[in-house]
């Protein structure tokens, strides 16, 4: 019994569950990462990782602008990311390549504005901490008053994805099939970008503008290694997103007691490091499973090629074309 208590105490340093900032971080940080991970599954499937990253950079401009005028950075992040989503959709129209170029240009402009705002903000009020907060997030300084806003925005992003679940999958398979079936492909795409903008803005506040991409893409990419089913991929991404964030918060809290600094490491660092570890592990697992499956199939498959796969024609006559 004493051993158990000693073990728990070793993992959860004193005060972990009673600290108000920690509780807020667990609720808000956890919710935000979960939303980002779920939204991110479609970001990866639709090949819009670059757009997701750009929204973080655009958000930086908004967040630093909000700081400059004394508003809550969240509103700055949301405003700029949503405007950016609209701009990307407007310029990018139909061609994926054109979309990338458009995204890149919008992104560059966003970072330029962020540089200006951060410069103005920090030189006027001498708070270099603002730069760190905007770029790398700060889960422990979110006030309890902001919780309803976070919950509402999270629900909005999740709601959009739930509503568009099937049309998003269908238009990822083929834009033409989806259009022919009557899916308003552009509207669906724009609404999805909106959900992405909200999710990215939220994680800009918790995990930081620069690292928001990791929370968006990382759990989703790991989930895609683990399952072949769309519903399960979303579930895995949600679990991974939540788990790495909670574990990151715990490690960051504990790190206050770690030598040699004795003043704690940032949560964002732990979360991103954990995402990388999970992705690598998921990749190794999927490779092992594939190798195992391959062995089973090849031993079960006779020379006639059971298993439904049409054998390639190798006769010299058929080869000419």
């Amino acid at each position: 019994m004493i051993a158990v208590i000693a073990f728990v105490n070793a993992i959860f340093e004193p005060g972990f569950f009673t600290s108000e900032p920690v509780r807020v971080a667990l609720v808000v940080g956890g919710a935000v990462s979960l939303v980002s991970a779920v939204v991110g599954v479609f970001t990866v499937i639709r090949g819009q990782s670059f757009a997701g990253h750009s929204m973080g950079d655009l958000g930086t401009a908004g967040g630093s602008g909000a700081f400059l005028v004394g508003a809550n950075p969240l509103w700055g992040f949301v405003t700029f990311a949503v405007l950016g989503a609209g701009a990307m959709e407007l310029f990018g129209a139909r061609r994926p390549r054109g979309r990338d170029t458009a995204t890149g240009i919008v992104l560059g402009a966003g970072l330029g504005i962020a540089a200006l705002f951060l410069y103005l903000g920090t030189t006027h009020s001498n708070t270099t901490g603002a730069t760190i907060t905007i770029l790398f997030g700060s889960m422990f300084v979110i006030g309890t008053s902001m919780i309803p806003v976070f919950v509402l925005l999270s629900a909005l992003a999740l709601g959009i994805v739930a509503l568009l679940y099937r049309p998003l999958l269908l238009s990822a398979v083929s834009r033409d099939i989806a259009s022919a079936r009557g899916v308003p492909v552009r509207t669906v795409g724009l609404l999805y970008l909106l959900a992405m903008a909200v999710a990215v803005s939220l994680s800009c506040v918790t995990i930081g503008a620069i690292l928001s991409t990791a929370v968006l893409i990382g759990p989703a990419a790991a989930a895609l290694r683990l399952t072949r089913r769309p519903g399960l991929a979303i579930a895995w991404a949600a679990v991974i997103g939540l788990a790495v964030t909670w574990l990151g918060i715990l490690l960051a809290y504990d790190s206050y007691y770690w030598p040699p600094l004795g003043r704690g490491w940032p949560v964002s660092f732990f979360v991103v490091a954990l995402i990388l570890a999970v992705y690598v592990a998921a990749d190794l697992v999927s490779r092992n499973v594939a190798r195992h499956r391959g062995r089973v199939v090849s031993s079960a498959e006779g020379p006639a090629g059971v298993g439904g796969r049409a054998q390639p024609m190798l006769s010299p006559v058929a080869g000419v074309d």
Partner: protein
Amino acid sequence: MNETARPGAGREEILSLEGVSLWLSGREILHEVSFSLHSGELTGLIGSNGAGKTTIFKVVLGLETPTAGKVLFSGEARPRRNRSIGYVPQSIGLDPDVPLRARDLVALGLDGDRYGIPLPSRGRRQRVDEMLQAVDAQGFADTRVGKLSGGELQRTLIAHALIAEPRLLLLDEPLANLDITSEQEVVGLLASIAKARAIAVLISAHEMNPLLPVMDRVVYVASGRAASGSTEEVVREDVLSALYGHHVDVLHVNGRILVVAGKDEVHHTGPESEHTAVPRGLG
């Protein structure tokens, strides 16, 4: 030709194009194209790349609006949201990582245009299973779509289109990128689908020979113009020469038909260059 496959009484008209012309950025892409498709019939939309096949598909699917002419479904104008047309594109370019099994893609054919999250239901699963069986796809039902071979993907996409019970099935170059075995499988499958389900099937192809045994009608497209009817009526030197605007020869070799440019057209850089004198399988 196959006698039972002749267009005739009892077959219902599903789609008709009447004098459809289409201008895009100052160019006439289609010029007064007319043809009709009937239930239980398999029609080949034959022409080289750039002849206008894909544009005709887009017009039928409602993705392009004709500048002139009419597109009628069972005699009526096309509704905006049309579940009665199944469409199989030439390629879908899905990443192998995308978590979508063949059976998930088929299920999307059932309700992929609906909003919200689908509740798992026994009826839904059963319909998907039946459809997978109908195209002989049970063997790879749980394989990721991005990892399917060309023939497997083609059959999955056919099941995806068929599960919504369309009255018209459009397939864009379904035989491109298939080896000869899969090609014959897919052709046989489509012919039996047309008959068994009494739906109209329209297949575009730049090579008509693989379709000859099963094709009830042909719509031959060249430079945005089309001629339609039975193979004997359309694939003739006078008809095709008029279509191309210069003389072409139609040669019958071992049950295959070759369309080649006439003598005075040695440097055939036009659309007919796809129909060169070397057919598949001959050297």
